[in-house]
């Protein structure tokens, strides 16, 4: 009986891993063939389409735009999220639960609707479509995430450390920078890292709110109009590779530490 369960478990796990990896393997495999269609049979390795991607200035500048929007919007999200989490966790504020609910509310709304709302508002206010507009949208989706992560990690035991610092004469800003931020570092990094990931991969808000200068997912979307295209395979594989390197890096360095 036990052995049967074990074998069934193994087969099931292999099947799920197979399903999970099938499209990714196909994507990477056919990015490596020189023919103009990424379809079987596989005709041998070539880096032709990678060269095509790297010499395409639309794609490379979109990549830079994406990184810029991701880093800046995540910094804004984590800063606003951290300050508000600290405020709500350390002080008794009237209507606290309601206000916290308000900050986390965007988590329950589709990106499409957040993007639509900003599109209508900016359209009325005469704000032109731009990377900045998309970045504002990315802070809307990531601020509640950063707030929720950091707020949930602000345990009462950390209050005592802060209190001790105050009793020893530290000014409030000193307590913040030298005690709270270092103590909360794992949660802050987790919030920042997740925001980076979501912003980097976000499509619909950028699609609605940018025009000429745009982000990588939107530029990849434009490539899709040409149907199955080995260039899309190549740029997809590159994005995958970059993400894997980042994940492994974060896994090995920052996220390994357990929150205190």
């Amino acid at each position, binding site marked *: 009986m036990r052995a049967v369960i074990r074998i069934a478990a*193994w087969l*099931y*796990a292999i099947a*799920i*891993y197979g*399903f*999970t990896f*099938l*499209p*990714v393997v*196909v*994507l990477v495999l*056919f990015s490596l063939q020189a023919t103009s269609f990424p*379809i*079987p049979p596989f005709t041998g390795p070539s880096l032709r389409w990678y060269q095509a991607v790297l010499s395409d200035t639309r794609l490379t500048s979109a990549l830079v735009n994406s990184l810029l929007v991701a880093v800046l919007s995540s910094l804004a999200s984590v800063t*606003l999220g951290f*300050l*508000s989490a600290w*405020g*709500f966790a*350390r002080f008794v*504020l009237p209507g606290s639960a309601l*206000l916290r609910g*308000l*900050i986390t509310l*965007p988590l*329950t*709304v*589709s990106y*499409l*609707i*957040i993007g*639509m*709302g900003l599109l*209508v*508002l900016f*359209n*009325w206010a005469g704000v032109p479509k731009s990377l900045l507009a998309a970045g*504002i949208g990315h*802070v*809307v989706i990531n601020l509640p995430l950063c*707030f929720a992560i950091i*707020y*949930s990690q*602000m*345990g009462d035991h950390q209050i005592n450390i802060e209190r001790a610092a105050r009793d020893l004469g530290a000014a*409030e800003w000193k307590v913040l920078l030298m005690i709270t931020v270092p103590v909360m570092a794992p949660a802050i990094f987790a919030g920042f890292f997740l925001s980076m990931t979501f912003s980097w991969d976000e*499509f*619909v808000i950028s699609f609605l709110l940018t025009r000429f200068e745009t982000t990588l*997912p939107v530029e990849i*979307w434009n490539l*899709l109009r040409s149907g*199955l295209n080995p260039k899309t*395979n190549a740029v*997809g594989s590159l*994005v*995958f590779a970059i*993400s*894997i390197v980042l994940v492994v890096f974060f*896994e090995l360095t920052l996220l390994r530490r357990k929150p205190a």
Partner: protein
Amino acid sequence: MSVSGSNSRALPWALVTPALAWTLAFFVLPFIAMGLSGLTAHEGGGLTLANYSQFFTDPSYWRAMVNSLEVTAIVTVISILLAYPFAWILAEQVPERWQRLALMLAVLPFWTSYVVRSYSWLLVLAQNGVINRALTGLGLIAEPLQLANTRFATVTGFVHFFVMLLTLTIFANLKQLSPSYRKAAADLGAGPVRTFLHVVLPLTLPGIMVGAFLTFVLCIGDYITPQILGGNNELVMPQLVMMQIGRRGDFPLASALSIILMAVVTVAYLACARWLKIERA
């Protein structure tokens, strides 16, 4: 909680105001703008309920909502059914020190771009894609199957994504269970099946619910997967919304449809609210 000095009242507000102001300016205000826009006429302005009545009277619009709900329900159920045994295997059958690696491997395709991940399924399912080539090559079918641009393709792309997500939430839930529950059940004479059905499964319900809710919200609001894999044969709500903006520039109708979509999600949220509390540790 005594902070000395006159800034003791001002400081907390200074901390929370920027986040609140951001949320008001770029989330609440756009939402109000969208609400107003949905009540104006596309031609000439002026208050009207025409955008909403169009949704409720035009069967093709209704159809999009029905399609959305059907696809979301199918995806949620299939994803839970596939993810639960997998999460259980990872938590129970895989040795402790390999679990982290096994989980990381399982969610690896998460890290491709979302757009690219849907496109990769197109490579697999297209007329001349991997599956059709393999099946014709083996002589199992004479003509390629129509797999892409169908509901099947949309569901496959979604399930691929949400199995990973649900595996994470259910796995986390399973790992939190103290082994003493199972020991107690065994001591009281329950077999493995009974222990699972009456102890483990009820205790992992919160993980399932959180995952199911996330699946519902993300799935019903997603434009990318249905557009790339489902094509235009059978529209879902997000496609209908985007179509109003793209082809006709009809912001009022797009706004009204967005509000309707959001109302549906809100109902689901209220139904699941008690499972989804964010609490401080």
